[in-house]
C-alpha cells in the first residue's frame, strides 16, 4: 500500500485550492500583483471552472451602482439580513469592493450582464433588499461569470492540477506557518505534496450533509475539516442556510434537492399543501414572498403537520399565472423540470427546503489572512461576512471580492516571504494514514452511511432545532462516524476511485456535522438561519455573540465571542437622515 | 486541414464552376437528343475561342476545387498530413489540370 515514500513532491510559490469565484479570482489577481517569475498553481477537486457552486449561481450578484442605491445601503441590508452578527469590517469591504469587482468582471474579464433598454446594467431586488441591486445574466449568472474567469485562467501560465483533492494542510514543525498541502491525484490515486509560500483555500464549504441540498457534488466541507484539524478557529458554524424550494423527486435521484429558483415565488408562485391550500400567510404577512429562512420554516412546519408518509413535501404551483406565460418567463426552469419529468408551467411540483449555503467558516481578517502564516481563506470557506444569514446575491459577490483580495494580498506578501518552508513530516504521515484508513478495512456500503448522516442532520440539526434534538444529532453523527471508521474501501485499484473519495467526503462531512450540531446547541437564541424552537427569540442585539469552534487535541472546544460593532450599532444606521427605508417599489 | 486561403480557393472555384456546370448540362441535354457523335461535338466546339474559355476555366476551377476537396477527405480519412499532404494535393491538381487541358485542347483547337 501507499507509503510516505510513494508521494510525489513539487514546489510552487502561490497555491490556490478550488476554482470557484474565490479561486479563479485569486489566481488572476495573484498573477497581476506578484513579482515577475512567481509560480502559481491551481489545484481543484474537479475540472477547472466546472465544479463548485459559483458556476451554479442563478439569481445574481449584489452591488450598489447608484440610482439611489449606495454602498452604505448595501452594507446596512447585509448587517440587518445577518441579524447583527456579521463581522462589520468584512461586510463593509464586501459591499465596497463589489463595485470594483463588477466593473472588472464586465470590462476586463468580459462578462456580459443583462441590460436595461438604454444599455445600462439591469438590476433587480432579491428578498431582503431595499434596492434593486442584483446584477444578473438571465438566471444563469454563474455560468457567465465562471466561464469567462476560467478562460483567463486557462490562457495564463498557471500550473493546473485538476482532479486533485486536497486532503491535508501541512504546517511547519513548530506549527507557526503553513508549509504544504497534501493532495490525492484522483486520476492516478497517488499522493502529491505541494509546498508553497502562500496558500489560498477556496474550497467553498458546502452543506451537503443534509438530506436535501443544492451544492455541487464535489463540495463536502473538505476545506473546513482541514482547517479544523490544524487548529484554526471556525465561526458561525451553526448557520446553515436553507433554500425553501428544492425539488423533491425521491431518494434515488440526484435531482432531489436542486433549487427551483427564488424568482418563481417573486413572480407570484404559490406554495400549496397536500390539500391544495396556500399556507404561507399563516406564517408570515408577506406569504410566499417572505425571506428564505421564513419560507423554509413555513414549509418545514407544514410538512411536520402532515403525517402521510407518501406525501413528504409541499407543492409550488405556477399555473394560475398562465402556463404559456410561465413557460416564457422561466424557460430554463420549466425545461429543467420537464427534463426531470415535472410540469412546472401547467402542474405543480413537489418541493422541500434544501440546504443551500454555509455562512460559517474559518475566522479571517478582511485581508483574508488566517491565524496561521501562509494560509489565506476566501469565499464560502471564510466565515464572518454574512453573520447568520446570507442575502441572495451576496454569495458570489463575497467569493469574487475576497478571492481577488486574497490574490492581491498574496501577491504582495510574496515580496517579503523567505524560502519555502519544510513540512512537518509527522503531520504528513498522519494525514496519509488518515486517507489510507479505509483501504485496510473490509469494504462496505458508504452510500448508506451518507444517507444515514443526511437523515440525522435533516431531522435533528435542520431547519428547526431544539436542545435535545441537537444532542441527539451529535450522538447520531458520532455513531455514523464510528461506523465509517469501520467501513473500508477495496484498494485494488485506486485510480479515479470514486468510492474512496466518497469515504473521504464522509470523513469531512462527519467532522463538520459534529461542529454544526455543537455550535447549534451553544447558540441559545434564534437568528437568521438558526432557529431554536426552545429559544425562539433573537436575544439582545446589543450583546450579540457569535460561536467559535476549535479542535484542541482530540477535543472540540466551543465558545461564544462578542460581536464588535465597529461601524454601526444595533438600532442605528449609517444611512443619511431621511433616507427612505426601501427603494424597492412595492410589488 | 484547410486554412482560409485554401477555403477561399475552394469556394471561389465552386462559384466559378456553378454556372459552367449548369451550362454544360444544358448543352448535354440538348445534345443527347438524337444521339451523340464525335463529329457533332467537335463541330460545335472546334475552333471556338468561347468554348475554349468555357471549358478551360472549368478545368482550372475543377483542378483547384477537387484537389482541395480530396485533400480534406484524405486528411480526415487517412490522417495524412504535413509535406505529403501538400505533395498529394498538388499532384491531384496537376493531374486534373493536364488531363483536363488535353481534353479541352482536343475538343477545341486540335
Amino acid at each position, binding site marked *: 500500500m501507499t507509503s510516505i515514500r510513494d508521494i510525489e513532491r513539487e514546489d510552487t510559490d502561490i497555491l490556490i485550492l478550488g476554482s470557484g469565484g474565490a479561486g479563479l479570482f485569486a489566481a488572476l489577481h495573484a498573477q497581476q500583483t506578484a513579482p515577475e517569475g512567481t509560480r502559481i498553481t491551481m489545484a481543484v477537486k*474537479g*475540472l*477547472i471552472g*466546472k*465544479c463548485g457552486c459559483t*458556476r*451554479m449561481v442563478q439569481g445574481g450578484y449584489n452591488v450598489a451602482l447608484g440610482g439611489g442605491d449606495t454602498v452604505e445601503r448595501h452594507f446596512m441590508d447585509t448587517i440587518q439580513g445577518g441579524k447583527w452578527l456579521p463581522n462589520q469590517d468584512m461586510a463593509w469591504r464586501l459591499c465596497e469592493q463589489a463595485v*470594483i*469587482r463588477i*466593473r472588472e468582471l464586465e*470590462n*476586463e*474579464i*468580459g462578462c*456580459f450582464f443583462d*441590460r436595461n*433598454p*438604454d*444599455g*445600462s446594467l439591469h438590476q433587480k431586488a432579491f428578498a431582503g433588499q431595499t434596492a434593486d441591486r442584483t446584477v444578473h*445574466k*438571465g438566471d*444563469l449568472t454563474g*455560468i*457567465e461569470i465562471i*466561464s*469567462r474567469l476560467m*478562460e483567463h485562467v*486557462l490562457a495564463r501560465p498557471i500550473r493546473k492540477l485538476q482532479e486533485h483533492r486536497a486532503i491535508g494542510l501541512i504546517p511547519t514543525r513548530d506549527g507557526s506557518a503553513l508549509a504544504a498541502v497534501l493532495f490525492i491525484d484522483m*486520476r492516478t490515486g497517488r499522493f502529491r505534496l505541494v509546498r508553497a509560500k502562500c496558500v489560498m483555500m477556496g474550497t467553498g464549504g458546502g452543506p451537503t450533509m443534509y438530506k436535501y441540498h443544492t451544492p*455541487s*457534488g*464535489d463540495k463536502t466541507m473538505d476545506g473546513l475539516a482541514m482547517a479544523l484539524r490544524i487548529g484554526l478557529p471556525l465561526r458561525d458554524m451553526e448557520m446553515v442556510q436553507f433554500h425553501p424550494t428544492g425539488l423533491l423527486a*425521491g431518494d*434515488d*435521484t*440526484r*435531482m432531489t434537492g*436542486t*433549487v427551483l429558483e427564488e424568482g418563481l415565488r417573486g413572480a407570484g408562485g404559490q406554495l400549496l399543501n397536500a390539500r391544495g391550500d396556500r399556507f404561507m400567510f399563516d406564517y408570515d404577512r408577506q406569504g410566499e414572498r417572505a425571506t428564505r429562512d421564513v419560507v423554509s420554516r413555513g414549509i418545514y412546519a407544514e410538512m411536520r403537520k402532515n403525517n402521510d408518509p407518501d406525501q413528504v413535501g409541499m407543492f409550488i404551483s405556477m399555473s394560475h399565472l398562465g402556463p404559456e406565460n410561465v413557460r416564457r418567463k422561466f424557460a430554463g426552469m420549466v425545461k*429543467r423540470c420537464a*427534463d*426531470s419529468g415535472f410540469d412546472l408551467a401547467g402542474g405543480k411540483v413537489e418541493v422541500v427546503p434544501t440546504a443551500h449555503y454555509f455562512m460559517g467558516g474559518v475566522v479571517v481578517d478582511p485581508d483574508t489572512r488566517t491565524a496561521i502564516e501562509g494560509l489565506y481563506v476566501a469565499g464560502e470557506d471564510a466565515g464572518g461576512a454574512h453573520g447568520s444569514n446570507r442575502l441572495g446575491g451576496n454569495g458570489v459577490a463575497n467569493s469574487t471580492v475576497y478571492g481577488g483580495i486574497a490574490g492581491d494580498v498574496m501577491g504582495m506578501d510574496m515580496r517579503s516571504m523567505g524560502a519555502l518552508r519544510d513540512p512537518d513530516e509527522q503531520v504528513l504521515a498522519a494525514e496519509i494514514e488518515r486517507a489510507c484508513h479505509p483501504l485496510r478495512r473490509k*469494504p462496505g*456500503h458508504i*452510500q448508506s452511511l451518507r444517507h444515514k448522516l443526511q437523515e440525522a442532520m435533516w431531522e435533528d440539526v435542520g431547519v428547526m432545532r431544539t436542545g435535545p434534538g441537537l444532542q441527539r444529532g451529535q450522538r447520531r453523527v458520532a455513531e455514523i462516524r464510528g461506523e465509517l471508521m469501520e467501513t473500508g474501501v*477495496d484498494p485494488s*485499484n485506486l*485510480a*479515479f476511485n*470514486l*468510492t474512496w473519495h466518497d469515504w473521504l467526503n464522509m470523513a469531512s462531512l462527519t467532522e463538520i456535522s459534529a461542529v454544526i450540531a455543537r455550535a447549534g446547541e451553544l447558540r441559545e437564541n434564534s437568528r437568521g438561519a438558526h432557529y431554536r424552537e426552545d429559544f425562539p427569540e433573537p436575544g439582545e442585539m446589543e450583546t450579540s455573540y457569535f460561536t467559535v469552534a476549535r479542535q484542541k487535541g482530540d477535543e472540540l472546544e466551543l465558545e461564544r465571542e462578542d460581536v464588535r460593532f465597529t461601524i454601526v450599532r444595533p438600532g442605528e444606521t449609517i444611512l443619511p437622515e431621511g433616507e427612505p427605508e426601501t427603494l424597492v417599489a412595492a410589488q | 486541414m*484547410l*486554412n*482560409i486561403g485554401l477555403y*477561399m480557393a475552394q*469556394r471561389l472555384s465552386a462559384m466559378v464552376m456553378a454556372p459552367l456546370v449548369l451550362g454544360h448540362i444544358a448543352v448535354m441535354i440538348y445534345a443527347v437528343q438524337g444521339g451523340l457523335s464525335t463529329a457533332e461535338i467537335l463541330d460545335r466546339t472546334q475552333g471556338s475561342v468561347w468554348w475554349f474559355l468555357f471549358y478551360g476555366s472549368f478545368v482550372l476551377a475543377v483542378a483547384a476545387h477537387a484537389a482541395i476537396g480530396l485533400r*480534406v477527405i484524405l*486528411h*480526415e480519412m487517412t490522417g495524412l498530413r504535413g509535406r505529403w499532404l501538400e505533395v498529394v494535393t498538388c499532384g491531384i491538381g496537376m493531374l486534373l489540370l493536364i488531363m483536363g487541358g488535353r481534353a479541352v485542347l482536343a475538343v477545341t483547337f486540335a
Partner: protein
Amino acid sequence: MSDRSKLLEVSVWRGMGDEGAYETFQVPARDNQTVLDVVSWIQQSADPSLTYRYACRVGMCGSCAMMVNGVPRWTCRTHVKRVLRDGALQIGPLRNLPVIKDLAADMDPFFDKWIRAGGVHRPSRSRDDPIQQVPPDDPGRVEANKGIECINCSVCYAACDTVAGNPDYLGPAALQRAWTLYNDAKVEDRQAVLDSVSGAGGCHNCHSQGSCTRFCPNELDPLSAIAGLKRASARSFFRRGE
C-alpha cells in the same frame, strides 16, 4: 410508485485509456431517474470501482456528458425514460476525447482548443472605467447572446465527425465562443479573433455536419456561429485584398 422489481439492462464502458470493454449491469428502474442516477447507482451499489464525472447535477457545469446509446448527452438531465431502448441502455465515455478511466474523459484537448481559438476576452476597458453601455437590441449583442449560454460540456465536440477526422480542428464549441467574442462590442481587437480561427484547424474545416447543433443540450447553434465566422473571415479576406 413504479414497479419496484423492474430492472434496466445497462452496459457500461470499463477500462483505462484505449483498452476496455462494455460490462453489463442490472439496475433497478425508478420513476425519477436520470442516466447519471443509473451510473451513480452502479458505482454506489454494484461496482464501487466505476469512474464517472459530475458536479452540479442540474445541467450547469457540463461535467457529466457521456455517450448514451451512441449519442452524446448530458446525463444529469437526461431522464432514462427518454432514452431507454427495449429496457436497455449503453453508456460510454464521451467520444473524440482521450479516456482517463471508464466513463471519465480527459477534457483538456477541448479546453486547449477553446483557448487556441482565441476564446478569451480582449478587454477594451479596465476596472477603473465605467461599464460600457450596450443596448440589449444591438445587433452584435443579439448575435453574441445566442451562443453565450454554452456550458462547455463538449457534447457538440463529441458529436462532430470533423473533430474525429481532423485532430487540429478546433471544434464547434470553441468556434462558437470565438463568434460571440467577434460580435461583442466590448472586445478590443476583433480582427485578432478572426485570425485565430483562420489557421489550419480553424472554422474553415467545418463541413456543416450540424451534429453540434443537433445535440447541443442547451439548444445552441454552433453550426450557424461557425457559418458566421466563415462569412466574416471571407469578408475580411477580400477587404484586406490578399
